[in-house]
């Protein structure tokens, strides 16, 4: 666990970015080279991450003084460092980011083939990895925020990657701005923490918070306010209610980007942040808010996912929904389970996105699953990998099952209502995922004939990453999750959450009831969902027009976007344009200024008449003045 290792790990993608970004012009036309550089940069990081992972076995930590690289912003009474904190939690994130990241880089080499912005794409992707690494490596909230905003930027750039498309740039802008709203909360949360603790270092804050040794800037509810503000940031970044609206639109970006940023890594940053701040959330008792927002989002997004026909959008809503599960996990105090789900989700959702990309690649970028069907025969690898991903998320035995079940189990211990909603969502999840599978890969082919002609399996550079990702998606849950709260994963991360566990013990109530019972219930619910989807969709296509009013409401995503536009966007635009600019600025303020000028002109115009041009008239007035002044001076003083 040396600092050099961490620096290499961090800097490698930055180099990749600089090479592709600055010298991209000279790499033009050599796709292999720029793609190779991009992938290699992340591979180096991945290897470093494995070394780091090995180094933190048994609870070793790189942090504090030893991790400080340099003083960033410092002055009288405040010091913010660029420094690292590497523990078990960090290495899990590192492995996910660099591991999944590397595979997606490799996949992109094939997927982006022939695109005009090839080098630009890899530059952005490397920059994203760099920012994401900053986010998880930082030993203080400010550094986390740097990465936080950095990944937001990359997300913006990559969503709007095909900038000639209006919808893509709109989506990018929307993502950035909605994220900014969240960041606004994060920023204020940091200020509250700084005001309370005089520092933003994790170690200092958590230590002082446990010892109850800090400034109560908002009275007894300082930590409540701080954690809720930070949670606003998480809501924005991890697309929870009410700021989830950007994520479905973000599917305008290239599909590998959706896989990496909008499924596997960036959107889980909020979960990571809360897990990292576990001590604070335990002390402030705000976990319940987090859990409720999470479970509601999970349910809400799942309902929307049922009605969508665009495969990437379904995956997007399923991501929102799964993120909700993760928030339930960290909200109810099952931090390790939440992070475990984060990890399994990264594998199976990344896998599904890449598989969806593979479908798009074959289908000439068609996304509407009503125009697919029966793809199984033409694209067996894609089908099987997709199937594994979907089953990992919805059904029993594969990775997602283990992590989700741990969360639900903990939720029951915390609040049965959350558990029930979570279970219903699990049913919905199974239903919409397999609706997607059956409509896309089974049944009659509805592919248009000209597309059908060159329907083909993707090249190895694309399907190999799929196959590799399918392995952890299938087995990692069993490997690391066996034993529920006593599993290997829990042991590995034990040290990180020990402090929070101690504070929280009793608060959440130990999960009661047998784990096995819960697993059986979840398994059955999942299978029922799959069965329902089979009944409904294995033979039939989803209807083109929504039927009932409720269906229509859900299919239109509850009109949330329209409501936001009508309530926030348009009024602000109109007020700014008509009231502030036209009336206040041009009318009132400039009116006063020009009015003063006009008044002076009128007075001057009147006084002008006095200037007859006859010199003697001037002299007369001058002499009158002299006489009066002299008289005053001589006789009055």
């Amino acid at each position: 666990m040396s600092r050099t290792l961490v620096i290499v790990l961090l800097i490698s993608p930055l180099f990749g970015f600089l090479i592709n970004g600055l010298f991209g012009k000279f790499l033009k036309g050599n796709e292999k080279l720029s793609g190779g550089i991009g992938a290699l940069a992340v591979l180096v990081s991945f290897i470093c991450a494995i070394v780091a992972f090995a180094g933190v076995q048994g609870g070793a930590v790189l942090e504090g003084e030893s991790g400080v690289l340099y003083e960033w912003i410092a002055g009288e009474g405040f010091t913010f460092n660029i420094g690292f904190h590497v523990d078990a939690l960090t290495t899990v994130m590192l492995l996910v980011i660099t591991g999944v990241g590397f595979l997606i880089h490799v996949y992109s080499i094939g997927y982006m083939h022939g695109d005009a912005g090839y080098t630009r794409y890899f530059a952005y992707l490397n920059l994203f990895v760099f920012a994401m690494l900053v986010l998880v490596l930082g030993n203080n909230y400010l550094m986390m925020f740097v990465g936080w905003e950095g990944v937001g930027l990359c997300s913006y750039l990559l969503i709007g990657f095909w900038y000639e498309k209006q919808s893509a740039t709109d989506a990018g802008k929307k993502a950035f701005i909605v994220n900014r709203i969240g960041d606004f909360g994060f920023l204020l949360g940091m200020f509250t923490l700084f005001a309370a603790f005089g520092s933003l270092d994790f170690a200092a804050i958590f230590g002082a918070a446990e010892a109850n040794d800090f400034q109560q800037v908002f009275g007894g509810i300082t930590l409540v306010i701080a954690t809720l503000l930070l949670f606003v940031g998480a809501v924005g970044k991890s697309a929870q209610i009410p700021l989830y609206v950007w994520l479905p639109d973000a599917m305008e970006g290239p599909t590998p980007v959706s896989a990496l940023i909008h499924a596997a890594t960036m959107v889980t940053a909020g979960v990571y942040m809360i897990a990292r701040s576990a001590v604070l959330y335990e002390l402030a008792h705000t976990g319940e808010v987090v859990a409720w927002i999470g479970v509601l989002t999970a349910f809400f997004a799942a309902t929307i996912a049922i009605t969508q026909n665009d495969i990437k959008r379904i995956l997007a809503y399923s991501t929102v929904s799964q993120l909700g599960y993760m928030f339930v996990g960290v909200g109810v105090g099952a931090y390790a389970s939440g992070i475990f789900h984060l990890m399994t989700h990264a594998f199976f959702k990344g896998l599904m996105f890449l598989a969806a990309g593979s479908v798009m690649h074959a289908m000439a970028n068609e996304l509407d699953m009503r125009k697919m069907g029966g793809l199984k025969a033409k694209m067996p690898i894609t089908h099987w990998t997709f199937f594994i991903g979907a089953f990992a998320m919805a059904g029993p035995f594969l990775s997602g099952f283990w992590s989700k079940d741990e969360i639900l189990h903990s939720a029951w211990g915390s609040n049965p209502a959350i558990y029930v909603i979570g279970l219903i969502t699990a049913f919905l999840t199974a239903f919409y995922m397999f609706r997607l599978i059956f409509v896309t890969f089974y049944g009659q082919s509805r592919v248009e004939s000209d597309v059908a002609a060159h329907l083909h399996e993707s090249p190895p550079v694309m399907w190999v990453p799929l196959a590799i990702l399918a392995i952890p998606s299938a087995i990692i849950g069993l490997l690391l999750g066996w034993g529920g709260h006593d599993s290997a994963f829990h042991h590995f991360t034990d040290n990180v959450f020990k402090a929070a566990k101690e504070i929280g013990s009793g608060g959440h109530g130990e999960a009661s009831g047998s784990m096995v019972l819960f697993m059986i219930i979840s398994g059955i619910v999942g299978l029922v969902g799959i069965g329902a989807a089979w009944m409904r969709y294995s033979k039939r296509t989803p209807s083109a027009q929504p039927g009932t009013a409720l269906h229509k409401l859900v299919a239109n995503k509850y009109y949330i976007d329209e409501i936001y536009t009508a309530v926030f966007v348009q009024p602000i635009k109109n007020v700014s344009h008509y009231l502030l600019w036209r009336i206040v600025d041009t009318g009132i303020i400039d009116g006063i200024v020009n009015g003063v000028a006009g008044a002076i002109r009128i007075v001057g115009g009147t006084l002008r008449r006095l200037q007859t041009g006859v010199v003697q008239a001037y002299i007369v007035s001058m002499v009158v003045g002299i006489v009066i002044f002299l008289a005053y001076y001589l006789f009055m003083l």
Partner: protein
Amino acid sequence: MLLSTVIFLPLLGVVAIALLRGMGASAIKGIAMGVAVLTFLISLGLYTGFDATTTEMQFAESRAWIPQLGTRYDIGIDGISLWLVLLTTFLTPVCILAAWNSVEKGLSGFMMSLLALETGMLGVFCAMDLFLFFVFWESMLIPMYFLIGIWGGERRVYATIKFVLYTMAGSALMLVGILALYFQNGDNGFALLPLYERVGGFTHANLLFMAFFIAFAIKVPLFPFHTWLPDAHVEAPTVGSVILAGVLLKMGTYGIVRFCLPLFPEAAATYTPLIVTLAVVGIIYGALVAMVQPDLKKLVAYSSVSHLGFVVLGLFTQHHAGIQGGVLQMINHGLSTGALFLLVGMIYERRHSRMIVDFGGVAKSMPIFATVFMITTLSSIGLPGLNGFVGEFMILLGSFHSGAFSKVYVVLAATGVILAAVYMLWMFQRVMFGTPDKTNAALPDLNARELAVLLPVMLFIVWIGVYPKPFLNRMEKSVGVVVTKVRQEAAPAMGHTDFLDNLDDIERPTATDVQHQKEAERK
């Protein structure tokens, strides 16, 4: 002598150009560029020779000037003015290079105005004598008047007059203030430093504070004194806009930190609620109005109103981080808004339009331009890793931490961060993205000269963002002086009520209470 050399070397350039006017355009440009670069290089001596450990004025010079009036030629710099001096000497050669081919008439006059302006601005930042300060303050108006009035756009006369009259209205008040200080300064004439050490404040301190503050607020410009700015920017030639945004506006905020705060700390504390309200209104108002501007230059101009609101907010925090952030943000705004105006100027030269609707898809035809524009935009909206973030973060942190005013202001000000993203990215999208039409598709990308103009600015944008320590280091002590003054003497004037702060009164079990309770239950 180093400081005097830096201040007056550009004036020497003016004389040289005046004498050699007949030598042709390239000679004039060469002289101007040479002088500007030389000034910058010499001014680097100020940076290397600066002692960050002292609060004294450095490189100080003191000579009798007009003994009958009690005015002296006293100059010197501290950690605050150092950066503004360097910003000025840095931006001037950049501007000259940017204007290389764009001046069609009166090239020698243009270059002379630019160099004379540099002397005026440097003088303002170095003067340690009130009278000298005023002379520089006013003298810098003249070249600016010519720059906008001769080389400006269609409504340049209206804009120039508005600019000059607005400023003069403030200057008149400031002159009264300077005279009032003179009469309270005993035998020290117009010297500034003895005023700092004066104990017991001044008579009519509140009025004097206002006299100075309004003059500076107009220059900043603080809402609602800002309406000259959009007009001046729109009509000014590119270089004029750059200097205006980059340096001239900083003279207002510099004045606040040099005069208003240390001289009248109590009055400053008294008026803090009012001023901070105006600053926050300016932040939000500027951002909202910027959002709906159809003209690129106007958009950037209103964004300046928003950004300078942040600076003023920072300066009135009575907090190290806040004031340091405010000073740093002056530099940052100079760099990023300066760069934005340069970029707008470059695209205007190609397209002869500044209307956003005329653009679209420019990223396709001008990828390098789009990249630089993107970096500048991000710097302007305060993305971490670039300069704007460091300043904004420190300002907001300081405001939140200081307790000089309610935290509600900070929350409102922080919304400016969101709005900045809205208007800048929306503008960027409309200009850069989409499919270019025939005219826009034919625009040539940046040439080597234009890159040479922009790259140094980009370098500093990244540098301050990644490693601001050299900057913060050198201003720390000087800011400390201001903070001590403001805190000590302002303490009695504080004591506002704040509904957020009153949350103390609400009874709430603390975390440890809960823990104890649980332990008790378990037992």
